[in-house]
């Protein structure tokens, strides 16, 4: 693995990341909150259910990622889904059943399901 020896090397990683994000544009990105609390409330089950249901439904352009706390404790487990060309939408209070419904409706047909969590913050991006 290449060691970072200069700011130029860092910049290259930043470009790589931009390319990675750009390459996701045509894919469905499913970002599952997996902090201790999210896992305790069923985040991993939800992730597995989404993977399984996406397979069953023949949706194969899905990319999964894990992240930390999404800050919505009252609505855990939470998942942010970004459909190609659309703004990310956060869904909360998921379980095995509603996760499958999320795939059948939102991932497949772009049809919103219950428990959309409105974004209530401004994020500082460096």
């Amino acid at each position, binding site marked *: *693995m290449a060691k970072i020896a200069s*700011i130029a090397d860092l910049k290259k990683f930043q470009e790589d*990341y931009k390319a990675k994000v750009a390459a996701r544009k045509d894919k469905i990105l499913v970002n599952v909150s997996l902090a*201790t609390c999210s896992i305790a409330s069923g985040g991993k089950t939800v992730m597995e259910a989404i993977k399984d249901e996406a397979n069953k439904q023949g949706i194969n352009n899905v990319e999964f990622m894990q*992240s*930390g706390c999404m*800050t919505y404790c009252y609505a855990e487990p939470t998942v942010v889904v970004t459909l190609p060309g659309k703004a990310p939408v956060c869904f909360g209070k998921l379980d095995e059943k509603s996760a499958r419904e999320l795939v059948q409706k939102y991932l497949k047909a772009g049809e919103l399901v219950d428990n959309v969590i409105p974004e*209530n913050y401004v994020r*500082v991006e460096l």
Partner: protein
Amino acid sequence: MEVAKKQLRIATRNCGFIDPENIEDYFGVRGYEALANAITAGTPAGVIDEVKKSGIRGRGGGGFPTGTKWGFAAANQTDQKYVVCNADEGDPGAFMDRAVLEGDPHSVVEAMAICGYAIGASIGVVYIRAEYPLAIKRLVKAIEDARAYGVLGKNIMGSGFDFDIELKYGAGAFVCGEETALIRSMEGSRGEPYTKPPFPANSGYWSKPTIVNNVETFANIPAIMVKGADWFSSIGTEKSKGTKVFALAGKINNTGLIEVPMGITLKEVIFDIGGGCPGGKEFKAVQTGGPSGGALTYKDSDVPIDYDNLLAKNSMMGSGGMIVMDEDNCMVDIAKFFLDFTMDETCGKCTPCRIGSKRLYEILSKITHGQGTEADFEKLKTLAVNIKDTALCGLGQTMPNPVLSTMNTFADEYIAHVRDKKCPAGVCVDLLEIVILPEKCVGCTLCARVCPVNCISGKVKEAHVIDQAACIKCGACIEKCKFDAIVKK
């Protein structure tokens, strides 16, 4: 649905957005750029100036200016200095540090290296609770990855600057969040505080200059370095800059982690962000600063939240726990709850804290059992003030805060407990009577059947009566009654 965006996320900027176990994701959001700039193009004095100019103050609770602290350590000439990250998050209901470490561990690793460069330290230590296994796992991976990519370890980015980080695990003692006790614990001794001065910045870990900063303080540093001190100091109030992360918990609809600009009002936090209390109950008070803090009440709704305003209200910023209480919470009972916690967690080294906490608890206990007298008020106050003035460390000095602050703001509740032998919120069972309102009772007998001690009597279709001498005040009848005919008095 459009909602007001009252939150501003700086310390938690990456939580929920990047994969915490992938260093390349962190590079992608300009991670380690601040460190690279500092060590290849900056000077230690330049970094300290920038941090000073930003106006950031310690996010662990005390609120000491971070840049000034770093300046003290930098001024010491010695062979070894240390950077310590305090991740011994112990306040009941607080989880800000865990969220940052589990969601964005690299921001803390990077900031510790920046601090090391600024003060001339080559070793960093994270003191983290062993109860946070996932945070530990992600932090360990972050440190290993950072070493593998050459942004941590020997000769970082060819600059000649060495910095590495190790972990020390806390065993769950609340007092070890106090910096001198933390240092003792890291050295392998009992986690007991010692008298300052000397301050750790001059003589700390192994008697070497040591900077102890909280996780959240560190998480802000890369953002300050990349976006500049002027940007950071434009956020917040005159003396409290930037944002604060709070863990909003208790009787609140939207339990969650929030990050808000300093100076936001309590009303905005509770109602606009928190969505008010569940079940349409009245908001009564919020405990900030955990067991060391105090209560802000509905009367303080318009107070801008910052370090100095909270101190003026007999509370403190603390590390960011916010426990919301509604009309069903008894404030004497709440004070007793926190005293019970500190009484357990006092390390026992100094008398005011060890014995004082026990005595405070006993008096509060007397009051909640209906045996208090008005002389107890004076006793409580004198004792509380004495403990504040004489205790050795932060734990003892702040431990009476919940008592003083609730006595100030809810004096009427204390008086009701002592003079009228009543608990207005209906919490203290010895001061309660559960009664059946004869005008509402239809005589359905449901309450009599559910009563575990069979103290409710009455004929079918006639008003029932509770035998007060036998009633254990469990409240089972209140829950069962379909006619709201049973009330606490």
